[in-house]
C-alpha cells in the first residue's frame, strides 16, 4: 500500500507514460484542506470493459508481466479515495487516451500525507515513453502560494537530456526552487 498521495499519483502517471502516449498532461492543485490531481494522456485508452477490469486488483492483461495476476495501481487509488472521503474519476475511450482524476480531503483523519510533489514531478519527467510531459502545480495555503508549469521538452533542451545524474541533480534543484522548498541558500 502506498504511503503518500504522491506515490498513488506516480503510479497513475506511469500508466499514462506507458500507454503509448505522445503527450501526458498532469495538474496538481493543492490547498491546506484538499489535494487534487488530474493526469491525462493521449495513448491507447480503454474500452468500458477494459476499464471495469482495470478496477479489479486481481486482474492483469498479462502482457507487461507474463504470468502475473494482479494490477494494483488503479485499485489502490480507488481504495484510498473511498476510505478517506475522497473522489475519483476515470474517463477513457479506446484509442483516445485516458484521464484519471482524484480528489482527497486532507482534513480526513485517514487521508495519507501529500508527500514530495517536486520529487513526483521529477519522476514523471523521467518516464521514457511520451515525447512531451506537461506538469502544472499550484498550492495556496499557510505556506504561501506556488503556481508553475514545467515541460519535459524545455527541460531536456536546457539540460541536454535528463538521465545523466548531473542533469538530475540540476533538475531536482530547479524543481525545488520552483516549489520554494530547496535547502540551499545562494
Amino acid at each position: 500500500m502506498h504511503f503518500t498521495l504522491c506515490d498513488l499519483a506516480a503510479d497513475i502517471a506511469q500508466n499514462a507514460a506507458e500507454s503509448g502516449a505522445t503527450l501526458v498532461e498532469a495538474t496538481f492543485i493543492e490547498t491546506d484542506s484538499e489535494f487534487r490531481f488530474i493526469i491525462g494522456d493521449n495513448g491507447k485508452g480503454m474500452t468500458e470493459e477494459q476499464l471495469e477490469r482495470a478496477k479489479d486488483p486481481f486482474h492483469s492483461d498479462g502482457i507487461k508481466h507474463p504470468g502475473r495476476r494482479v494490477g494494483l495501481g488503479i485499485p489502490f487509488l480507488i481504495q484510498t479515495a473511498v476510505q478517506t472521503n475522497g473522489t475519483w474519476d476515470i474517463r477513457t475511450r479506446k484509442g483516445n487516451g485516458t484521464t484519471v482524476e482524484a480528489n482527497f480531503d486532507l482534513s480526513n483523519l485517514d487521508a495519507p500525507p501529500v508527500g514530495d510533489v517536486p520529487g513526483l514531478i521529477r519522476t514523471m519527467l523521467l518516464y521514457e515513453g511520451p515525447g512531451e510531459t506537461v506538469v502544472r502545480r499550484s498550492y495556496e495555503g499557510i505556506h504561501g502560494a506556488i503556481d508553475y508549469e514545467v515541460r519535459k521538452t524545455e527541460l531536456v533542451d536546457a539540460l541536454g537530456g535528463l538521465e545523466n545524474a548531473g542533469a538530475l541533480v540540476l533538475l531536482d534543484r530547479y524543481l525545488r526552487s520552483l516549489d520554494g522548498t530547496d535547502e540551499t541558500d545562494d
Partner: protein
Amino acid sequence: MAKMTLEELRKLRDGKKTELRKRDSDGKSIQVIVGMGTCGIAAGAKDTLDAFIAALDEKKLVDDVLVRQTGCMGLCYAEPTVEVLVPGMPTVIYGKVDVAVVREIVEKHLIGRQLLDNHIQDRPAADIVAK
C-alpha cells in the same frame, strides 16, 4: 532561494559541458536503474532514487553515471530493487536497497569495483532484458 529560470538552469548545465563531451567519446557509461513500479514505490524506491542522486553528487560522480527508472523487475518481495551496470563487470540486481545500501553500492561497487555479495538478488529478469 528565488525561483530558478530555464535560462539559469541552462547556464549551470553549460558550465559542465566540456567535461561531458570528454566522457561521451568512449561511449560506455555506468548505469543505475531503479525499479519504480507499484511495488517499488510502496517499498520506498523514491527515497532510494533520491539517495543515489545525493550520493553521486557527493562523490562527484554525476557526470559518469546514468540514473534511470524502470517498472517492476518481477522481484516485488525484494523491493526496492536496483540494477547496476558497470562496463567490465557482471550486471546485477540488488534487492532491499535502502539509503544505507545505496551508499554502499556507490562506494564499493561503482568506485571500488566490487560486488556487494550480501545484497545481490538476481541477474536481470528475462522479460526486461529485451528492452
